[in-house]
């Protein structure tokens, strides 16, 4: 690894139920208030709704906004915040050479059209023909584009002009980890200078809750902290993008690092085997602890992106306890944003390390112990609700 370059995070864009931008998040994380939870609009489910956002700020053309479903708007907005934060907005030359890796799901449907079809279809002599006719006449032509996974990246290209390259990863939580990992690896290996990586999720939709409901994995009210009482996934609307950059490239344009991204690891435990998640995640956490500035283990914390799905979350908790490190649950603050969860957690980890301290424990989450010492490193753990284990390490940049 000696020939690998450092990778800096030089821009962060974050929007969630706690607000937008790093300042809003830092104050919300520290003022001891309860997370923002909606237990009625999607009853019986718990969701963390997106804070009020003026999309015009980052997506000035209404025409562009109309072409997107909410998850794309959230992501395009967060990407704009990240580019602002990195001082890159409008810099055509750099944006034209910026590599992009986006973690995305997609598939937001027209629920009214679906409902109307389902209401009538079983009364039809030829249900499949009826379905064709209804879809043909009622689907909005551009809805398809608002559903396609890679069109979040496409919209970021259109709205912000990021065109160096564009790749979209799918595959739930692990796509978020791998989007960051590939962006990181290319810069570390010297084949990319600057990358925009991240993802977005809109929790305020019944069609997405449906996927979790099929396996009774969506959290029912009342809300509970996920590490102590993993009884389901409390989904949360959020978008997070990070600008990753080589020190050479950043320095040449006068940019300073917020933190160093010192490693990203992903693996896939065989979930059917007892103890597999503990073993794999334990190894990844050990790898992160051994990487970077190991002299500062006493200034290290873990930020967990645990989903709240019972089995994998219990396995993660076992690893967190064994680590002996101070722990904070990202999901208890902003909910769980599936593909976006690793980028969201990484944004909060970077924020904490850049502030040099850990935010306060959450009342009612005994896994979180007070930690007042200086913080120079943060490890993010991201265990998929169904598959995939990921870990990332950020360190103070100085």
């Amino acid at each position, binding site marked *: 690894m000696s020939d690998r370059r450092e990778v800096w995070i030089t821009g962060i864009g974050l929007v969630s139920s706690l607000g937008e931008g790093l300042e809003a998040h830092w104050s919300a994380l520290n003022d001891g208030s309860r997370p923002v939870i909606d237990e009625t609009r999607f009853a019986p489910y718990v969701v963390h709704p997106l804070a009020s956002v003026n999309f015009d700020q980052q997506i000035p053309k209404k025409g562009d906004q109309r*072409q997107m479903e909410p998850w794309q708007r959230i992501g395009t907005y967060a990407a704009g915040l990240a580019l602002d934060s990195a001082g890159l907005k409008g810099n055509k030359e750099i944006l034209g050479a910026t590599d992009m890796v986006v973690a995305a799901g*997609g598939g937001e*449907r027209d629920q009214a059209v*679906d*409902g*109307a079809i*389902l*209401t009538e*279809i079983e009364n039809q002599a030829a*249900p*499949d*023909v009826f379905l*064709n*006719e209804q*879809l*043909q006449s009622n*689907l909005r032509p551009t*809805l*398809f*584009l608002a559903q*396609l996974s*890679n*069109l979040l990246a*496409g919209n970021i*290209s*259109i709205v912000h*002009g*990021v*065109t*160096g390259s*564009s790749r*979209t*990863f*799918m*595959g*739930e939580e*692990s*796509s978020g980890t*791998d989007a960051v990992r*590939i962006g990181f690896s290319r810069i570390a*290996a010297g*084949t990319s200078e600057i990358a925009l990586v991240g993802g977005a999720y809109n929790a305020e939709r*019944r*069609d997405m*809750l*449906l*996927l*979790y*409901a*099929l*396996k009774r*994995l969506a959290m029912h009210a009342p809300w509970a902290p996920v590490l102590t009482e993993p009884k389901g996934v409390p989904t949360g609307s959020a978008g997070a993008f990070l600008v990753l950059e080589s020190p050479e490239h950043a320095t040449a344009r006068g940019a300073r690092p917020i933190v160093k991204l010192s490693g990203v690891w*992903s*693996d*896939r435990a065989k979930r059917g085997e007892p103890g597999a998640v503990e073993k794999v995640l334990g190894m990844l956490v050990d790898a992160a602890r051994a990487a970077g500035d190991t002299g500062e283990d006493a200034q290290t914390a873990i930020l967990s992106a645990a989903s709240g799905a019972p089995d994998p979350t219990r396995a993660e908790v076992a690893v967190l306890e064994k680590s002996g490190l101070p722990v904070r649950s990202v999901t208890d603050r902003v909910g769980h944003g599936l593909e976006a969860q690793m980028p969201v957690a990484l944004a909060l980890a970077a924020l904490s390390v850049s502030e040099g301290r850990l935010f306060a424990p959450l009342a009612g989450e005994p896994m979180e112990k007070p930690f007042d010492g200086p913080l120079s490193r943060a490890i993010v753990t991201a265990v998929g609700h*169904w*598959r*995939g*284990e*990921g870990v990332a390490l950020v360190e103070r940049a100085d």
Partner: protein
Amino acid sequence: MASYTDKAGRPIVVVTGMGMVTSLGQGKEDNWAKLTSGQSGIHRITRFPIDAMRTTIAGTVDFLPDSGRTAPDLSEELAALSAEEAVAQSGIGSKGDFPGPLFCAVPPIELEWPQRRILAQESVANGPITYDDLLRAAETHGHDAWHERFLYGSIADHLADRFGTRGQPISLSTACASGNTSIQLGVEAIRRGDCDAALSIATDGSVTAEALIRFSLLSALSTNNERPEAASRPFSKNRDGFIIAEGAGALVLESLEHAMARGAKILGVLEGCGEMADSFHRTRSSPDAKPVIGCMRSALADAGVGPDDIDYINAHGTSTPENDRMEFTGMSAVFGERLPDIPLSSNKSMIGHTLTAAGAIEAVFSLLTIQNGRIPPTINYEVPDPAIPLDVVPNVARDAQVKRVMSNSFGFGGQNVALVLTGEPA
């Protein structure tokens, strides 16, 4: 003794196994024979009723016993068949133990109408059905298996189990450029030294009634329904849209050093990958073709060769009025006056547009073109378009020595990826 590194000092990445399934058939041999004899795999749709459809033809894969299940089921089966062929040919690893990561391009996945209808019926709703009714039924009727089946990551996950690839597989989409991206990610991982081998698969078995309607609503599909086999007309004046199709392609990528050390037969070299995104429009390309030009040039630069070194182009050639014109404009800028003399063809004239899978299938066809010294034709080229004069190898295959191919893929969302492939390490 040849060097294991390329001009840029990076590990040379070679192909040691290839597999494919298309509407023409299963396996390279069958596909190649039919492709070079100008056969079309496009046919009338029988999978679902075509009443009320503006387009009634497709290149669906209907010859497998289980064709017609859910899109992820079929996509997974197509991927598995093509990867089995590729892994067997390469002789790499051992059964169920592939020594490298998996990069898998997959189509959009979501719960489908049969499942929605079952949930709606189970909900026994008293009035208009809403998603709240579906949610209630989902919680109580034991459809656990649907959760996994309709996750984006499930196809690659199952393939990772089956082939024993290492680590967390990456599922990806760059729309119709996905196949090329799956290869590009493998090439990059080997060049970085992350691994000695990678399995790149791109698959698409997602032709459902709703998918057809969605593309139809975007006016992207051909409505030349009368003679299905004559509908896909890349670069012809009377082209009117693409033909939606299914298939899968798989490639075993290895560092040259790794392949030589185990005495593997080298089928080709992945010399270069290039990409550039387009910020012009969600479905249309920049009229100046700048991103496409940049993409092709960056593939050449990555390969360390110039435009004069390309002697065949496996075109994206979708048969839409816009793509073929834009691709011509882009190629004109890159290849200049030499363009009319470079043979190029569109496999899509015969297999249709296999969407997510197209890049990988066409990469396999590109290497078969080099291997066999025979260029597959562009069929249905009866009315040349004078605005885009090209040697499309019209209608009949041509014997020719081909040393180096460029293979283009472009997609919705401004995705452009080009590959440069050769037969043997330099």
